[in-house]
């Protein structure tokens, strides 16, 4: 029988998925209203991966994310206030407004942030795992990467190193069928990136990335394996981003039909359906949950924008090198 989350966990998981979805919708709205500058990469449609990974791990496990990092950051428990503030470039943001949308980082929540150089976060996560192992910790590091990133040499080098050094790293491929406009079918020379695990002597599995319970179960399994055997693991999740790649994407590279097919498998709708079938939650409860999260988003942003706070350029420049006090540490 398929794995089922217990009621409490199921409710918190749905709640997290909705927070991710509504957070991103709020971001989208703010961008269309030109409240924000720069660009952003939404992951609407991929919430089952985001809500299925970190919650299945120990909170002390570390993650290294990608440019598409909002969901992972929420799943690690960051405050939406600090996240929105970061998007707005405010000094009360996660990184004081220095990093923005592509670099959400929250060290207190063991989120080491992301590389916006596609694939380059993977060796970093691998190195974190190396030091976790050396220091005798039981924690692991998660290296998120996409189908597009899978073509980067750095990932090959990291998987080989993680295997020969037996490092506690979970390689988590978030396969959403495209890297920008490039279809994985044309760019990735294997049907399943998980199959590449064998090339490195790394255990691997492919899972439906729109089924949050399946993701949760696979990650639990992978983490147990990593902790028990002291070896890496490669998990491929198959999903789809409903949103465009970034702000200005006309999505010419895919068909309306394909989009519609995937929309049938909206991970939130699928999970809600299940919870209703299992009578763990009612439609009305869901509606009110959704509304309360939406209100929280709106209020948070409104409050933030009423009180914009920014670093001075001197303060910002001060983070280029360690200060004298840092050095004394």
């Amino acid at each position, binding site marked *: 029988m398929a794995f089922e989350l217990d009621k409490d966990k199921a409710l918190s998981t749905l709640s997290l998925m909705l927070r991710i979805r509504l957070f991103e919708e709020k971001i989208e709205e703010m961008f269309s209203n030109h409240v924000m*500058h*720069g*660009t952003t990469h939404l992951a609407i449609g991929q919430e089952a991966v985001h809500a299925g990974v970190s919650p299945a791990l120990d909170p002390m496990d570390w993650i290294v994310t990608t440019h598409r990092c909002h969901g992972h950051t929420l799943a690690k428990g960051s405050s939406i206030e600090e996240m929105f503030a*970061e998007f707005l*470039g*405010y000094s009360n943001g996660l990184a004081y*407004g*220095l*990093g*923005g*949308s*592509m*670099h959400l980082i929250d060290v207190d929540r063991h989120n080491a942030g992301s*590389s*916006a*150089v*596609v*694939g380059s976060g993977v060796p970093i996560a691998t190195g974190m795992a190396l030091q976790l192992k050396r220091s005798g910790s039981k924690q692991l590091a998660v290296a998120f990467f996409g189908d*597009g*990133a899978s*073509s*980067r*040499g750095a990932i090959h080098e990291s998987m080989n190193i993680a295997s020969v050094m037996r490092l506690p790293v979970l390689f988590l491929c978030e396969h959403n069928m495209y*890297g*920008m*406009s*490039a279809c994985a079918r*044309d*760019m*990735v020379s294997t049907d399943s990136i998980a199959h590449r695990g064998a090339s490195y002597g790394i255990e691997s599995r492919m899972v439906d990335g729109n089924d949050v319970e399946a993701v949760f179960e696979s990650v639990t399994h992978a983490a147990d394996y990593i902790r028990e055997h002291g070896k890496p693991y490669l998990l491929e999740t198959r999903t789809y981003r409903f949103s465009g790649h970034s702000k200005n994407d006309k999505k*010419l*590279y895919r068909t309306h039909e394909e989009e519609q097919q995937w929309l049938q498998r909206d991970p939130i709708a699928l999970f809600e359906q299940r919870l209703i079938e299992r009578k763990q939650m009612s439609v009305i409860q869901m509606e009110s949950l959704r509304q309360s999260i939406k209100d929280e988003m709106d209020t948070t942003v409104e409050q933030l924008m009423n009180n914009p706070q*920014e*670093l001075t*350029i001197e303060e*910002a*420049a001060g*983070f*280029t090198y360690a200060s004298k006090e840092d050095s004394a540490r």
Partner: protein
Amino acid sequence: MKKLSCREAIREALAEEMLRDDNVVLIGEDLGCYGGCFQVTAGLFETFGPKQIIETPVSEEAIVGVSIGAAMMGMRPVVEIMYGDFSTLAADPLINHAAKMRFLSAGKLSVPLVYRTPMGSGTGAAAQHTQSLESMFTNIPGLKILYPSMPADLKGLMKSAIRDQDPVLFFEHKLYGVEEMIPEEDYLIPIGKADIKQKGNDVSIITYGKTVFTALEAARLLEDDDISAEVVDLRTLRPLDKDAIIASVVKTGRAVVVHEAPLFGGFSGEIVATIAEHPEAFRALKAPVARVCGLDMPTPFNKHLELELPPSHTRIIDAVLTLFRS
């Protein structure tokens, strides 16, 4: 004459050269229906198809390595790398291979490759998508390095770059929408020649890339102070048009060097040295040489902070005025 934006000027150069020679091939990520990250190649796929536009996986190192191999066999690849920051990934093929193939083969192989990539800030894309990394390459013999600013130059130099026998790095600023009137007819601009974008007698503002616009604005405002500034747009960084720099400085006796890359260790040092080591230019100097460059820090995401990094016309004007006070 016709009006073209920077984006259109590059696109037109690519299209004309691809039409002229079907060994001219665009290689890179999302070049096809997506039109490239900055829409420079938009529409070209319809005309030239997959034989001349090759979309690649996210593999910057291999994309450039593959292009080198293809160039050795007669292709004339024009590689697009989405952001100049990813030149870090292409450093090995460019520095250790493209730049040295002719030498290592005693002239029997050549690598007629163009490496196109946009540099600089202003897009709110934070520290890993806004750098000006030309200094990674300016010390490498075997490479030619262009960094033009205006549509007419972009077009004429792109065409020369494509026809060149050696590897050419072609850096683009991100003000792709800026327009200019350019000639209707076919033309080339030679690599290695600076252009005086504004004539002047009192001070030479020497620059390249996006800050050419800032320098022109500063020069315009300096007229109010009765200072006649000459704006030298280098267009090519390697080989550098030393004669143009020397001639201008000998005439004006004052020099301000400007670029967007951080000051310390930037290409401005080479320009200053070109002046300071030249007996005639050195003797002509009425004041120290000044530099106005990017702040020495990574680019912050915050919009206001980001805008403070590159040289402003105010900073250029202050530097010029200081030269007249000293």
